């Protein structure tokens, strides 16, 4: 597609919007040639008589003449308000067409297009710091800060990250992936600025869902106390929970905090009271501003009883709610706050619509939050057909069966109904499924409380998100030996989301706890059995981990109800001699493939599935050690996990004093970048080829190891 930047004179010759009779002649022209081709060439036009742009999504990506001139924020400084609005429309089209080809997070980015344009017009990154909470809405920010040409590589191997990343660009002030960290980081940057005597501005953008997490309050409380200059933009799209939370769309707001936000949006009467108070002080006249400020404070104190000044009680000055899609208003507010010398911490509450400007996203129940490749005209996603379901769905199915058999089974998740599969559980048992909001620490202790009264709580939290609630796991659950069951989804490498979402550490941090039962299924049938096993373990906490991805097609138990396994007992899948591969979790599948590859080299290995990391199947390990020369343990976890436990056991029992060769294969001691799952496994060295190569090397046949395909 030939992108010809228009010469400045052509652009300036375009008539202004105020003249309604010119509306038919108004055209966005990249060049004369482009305007003549394709009918009357209009892909993007300004709706006559109103302020909004209409974008035609059918057909090819529209020409984006203004966006073509913007590579960095400094190119936006001289744009007027109509030009900024046009830029926002072009950005929207760019995002829709890019994500249509790559997949990623769509609607959250669309909701903050105007905000991103306003922020970059007013502030000067990288000196000014803009911190995006969670970061999946940062696509417009990336496009405006020099990465437009690489957007087609987003979330792919060696491409742009799907979240802000400090290594990627100086304009990304702080890396993100988990939620609610932005205000804390922003406060740190603001305080550092003050200590160093700098003059830059610090802005954090946080959503209404992320602000329900405790860390956001810890940060706001501290900001109010320190009173450092800081701007917090609260991006409120009234979702609170992800729109994928239930099968019917977004969950109703999960807590009292959202009621506060709702009240804030409508308490015009209360604000009028304060404004009236200001008028009165002006009329008193001849007075200093201290009086005016005091009156304002009293007026605010008067209205605090109604709960609309939660933020002000924390010490933040509240402005809003403001229309988050009105560039003019946003620019005016940011300019004003920027020009004030000592505003302290300011919270600007903007109201946006998730997926704004792209009709299929606005209409969808899940708002097209996370999408795979789709067709821009219709919004229909090209979901690959698979013969098996995802592990998440098998887990949800198994849990529902357990709950049907036992009415003490309850499910808890932290604002991830869609991601953990508990939206199906919620549909089936609405009173037994608890969405606590983005509050993993609370979820764990809440589950502990449920367990003390005899219920059987299943905490479904992603492996990397459970890190946030780790002290609660240790102190509230394990120390008191309470039977809470943890279902850790997204264990191991997760592909496009990258290291922020990678569940590398859960084997390590769970298996070191004295009372925890730690298990991992090798396929979806084993997963169903482990759900049943966990339901049956009633005297101590237990956990099991399963990866992102689809099942392998194992034969499922009848009616999808698993049977409890014998605790601390693994199984041997394939018998062989000389070499034993002891896999943990879905790595067993890779071991099986390695065994097939090694058969062609005349080597017949034993493949065993350990099933349990704690308690270890010591009898199995002793037998494997006794009957084989070489023992290789394989897991998709960090150091300190399954392999460590096996090696400690062998060491303690003296089995390492003999002829046994022990090797452990686990994730390397570095963070694996985002990319396709096969590429990540390749980089981690945990593919079947790597396992087979390890065996061949140990057998003294390194040349064949190198020649493996």
């Amino acid at each position, binding site marked *: 597609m030939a992108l010809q930047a228009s010469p400045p004179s052509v652009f300036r010759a375009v008539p202004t919007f105020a003249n309604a009779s010119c509306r038919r002649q108004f055209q966005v022209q990249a060049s004369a040639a482009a305007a003549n081709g394709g009918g009357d060439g209009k892909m993007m036009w300004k709706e006559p008589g109103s302020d909004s742009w209409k974008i035609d999504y059918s057909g090819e990506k529209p020409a984006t003449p203004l966006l073509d001139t913007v590579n960095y924020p400094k190119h936006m400084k001289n744009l007027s308000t109509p030009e900024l609005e046009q830029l926002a429309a072009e950005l929207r089209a760019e995002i829709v067409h890019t994500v249509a080809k790559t997949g990623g997070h769509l609607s959250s980015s669309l909701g903050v297009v105007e905000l991103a344009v306003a922020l970059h017009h007013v502030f000067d990154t990288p000196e000014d710091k803009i911190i995006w909470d969670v970061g999946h809405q940062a696509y417009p920010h990336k496009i405006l800060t020099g990465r437009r040409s690489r957007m087609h590589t987003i979330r792919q191997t060696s491409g742009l990250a799907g979240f802000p990343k400090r290594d990627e660009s100086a304009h990304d002030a702080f890396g993100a992936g988990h939620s609610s960290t932005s205000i804390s980081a922003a406060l740190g940057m603001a305080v550092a600025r003050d200590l160093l005597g700098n003059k830059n501005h610090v802005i954090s953008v946080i959503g209404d869902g992320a602000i329900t997490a405790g860390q956001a309050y810890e940060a706001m409380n501290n900001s109010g106390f*320190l009173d450092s200059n800081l701007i917090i933009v609260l991006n409120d799209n009234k979702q609170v929970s992800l729109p994928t939370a239930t099968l019917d769309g977004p969950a109703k707001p999960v807590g009292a905090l959202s009621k506060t936000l709702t009240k804030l949006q409508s308490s015009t009467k209360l604000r009028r009271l304060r404004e009236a108070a200001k008028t009165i002080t002006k009329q008193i006249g*001849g007075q200093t501003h201290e009086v005016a400020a005091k009156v304002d404070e009293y007026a605010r104190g008067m209205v605090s009883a109604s709960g609309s000044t939660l933020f002000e009680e924390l010490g933040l000055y509240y402005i*809003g709610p403001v229309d988050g899609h009105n560039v003019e208003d946003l620019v005016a507010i940011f300019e004003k706050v920027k020009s004030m010398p000592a505003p302290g911490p300011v919270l600007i509450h903007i109201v946006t619509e998730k997926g704004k400007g792209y009709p299929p996203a606005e209409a969808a129940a899940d708002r097209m939050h996370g999408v795979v490749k789709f067709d821009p005209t219709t919004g229909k996603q090209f979901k690959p057909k698979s013969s098996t379901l995802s592990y998440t769905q098998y887990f949800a199915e198994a849990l529902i069966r357990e709950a049907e058999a036992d009415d003490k089974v309850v499910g808890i998740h932290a604002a991830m109904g869609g991601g953990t599969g508990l939206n199906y559980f919620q549909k089936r048992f609405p009173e037994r499924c608890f969405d606590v909001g983005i509050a993993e620490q609370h979820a764990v202790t809440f589950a502990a409380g449920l367990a003390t009264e005899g219920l059987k709580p299943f905490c479904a939290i992603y492996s990397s998100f459970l890190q946030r609630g780790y002290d609660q796991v240790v102190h509230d659950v394990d120390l008191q030996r309470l039977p809470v069951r943890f279902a850790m989804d997204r264990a191991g490498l997760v592909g496009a989301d990258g290291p922020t979402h990678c569940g590398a550490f859960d084997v390590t941090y769970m298996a070191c706890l004295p009372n925890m039962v730690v298990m991992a299924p090798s396929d979806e049938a084993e997963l169903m059995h482990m759900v049943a096993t966990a339901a049956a373990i009633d005297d101590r906490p237990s956990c099991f981990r399963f990866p992102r991805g689809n099942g392998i097609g194992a034969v499922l138990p009848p009616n999808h109800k698993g049977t409890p396994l014998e605790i601390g007992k693994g199984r041997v899948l394939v018998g062989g001699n000389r070499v034993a591969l002891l896999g943990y979790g879905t790595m067993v599948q890779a071991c099986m493939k390695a065994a097939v590859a090694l058969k062609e080299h005349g080597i017949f290995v034993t493949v065993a599935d350990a099933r349990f990391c704690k308690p270890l199947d010591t009898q199995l390990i002793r037998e494997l050690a006794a009957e084989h020369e070489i023992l290789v343990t394989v897991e998709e976890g960090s150091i300190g996990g399954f392999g460590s436990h096996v090696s400690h056991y062998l060491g303690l029992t003296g089995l390492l004093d003999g002829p046994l060769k022990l090797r452990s294969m686990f994730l390397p001691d570095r963070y694996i970048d985002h990319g396709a799952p096969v590429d990540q496994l390749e980089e981690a060295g945990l593919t079947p080829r790597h396992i087979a190569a390890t065996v061949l090397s140990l057998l003294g046949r390194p040349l064949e190891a190198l020649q493996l395909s």
Partner: protein
Amino acid sequence: MSSVCARPVGMGYMAGGARSQQRRRAARVRVPAAAVAMAPTARAETMYELLGVEETAEPEVIKAAYRRAARRWHPDACPGGAERFMRAREAYEVLSDPERRRGYDIQLRCGAGGGAQAARRAGFADWEAQLAGLQWRAAAHGRHGETWGSRMRHATAQAQP
């Protein structure tokens, strides 16, 4: 009054606020009929009038009224009706959302006329007044040095002659 207007930073701001305050005050105090007749349109129609419903209308009634208006004024059906269509759409968006409807009702009752409409969209806040309040607070609290931030700002200001 001069001392209020003396602050250079807020000058244009306060003046603008004072003017719009006056306009609002004038509206509340029975403006003589002659002044009203001079205005180009008698009074901007409310969103309820636009859709042709009562102020106490049920959500279903509002939805039906919007559907009627949409069919009537959609640009495909009625060339040139785009503006009325957009206004009907905006009216429906505000009136169908209970929180925004409440805010809009309060605005109507408090007499927010055409003058204030420019600064505020239906259901949203008057951020200009809020920003003014922020300036006042900053000016009033600036010198005390009770908070870490104010002490640091003071120190930075001192360090730069």
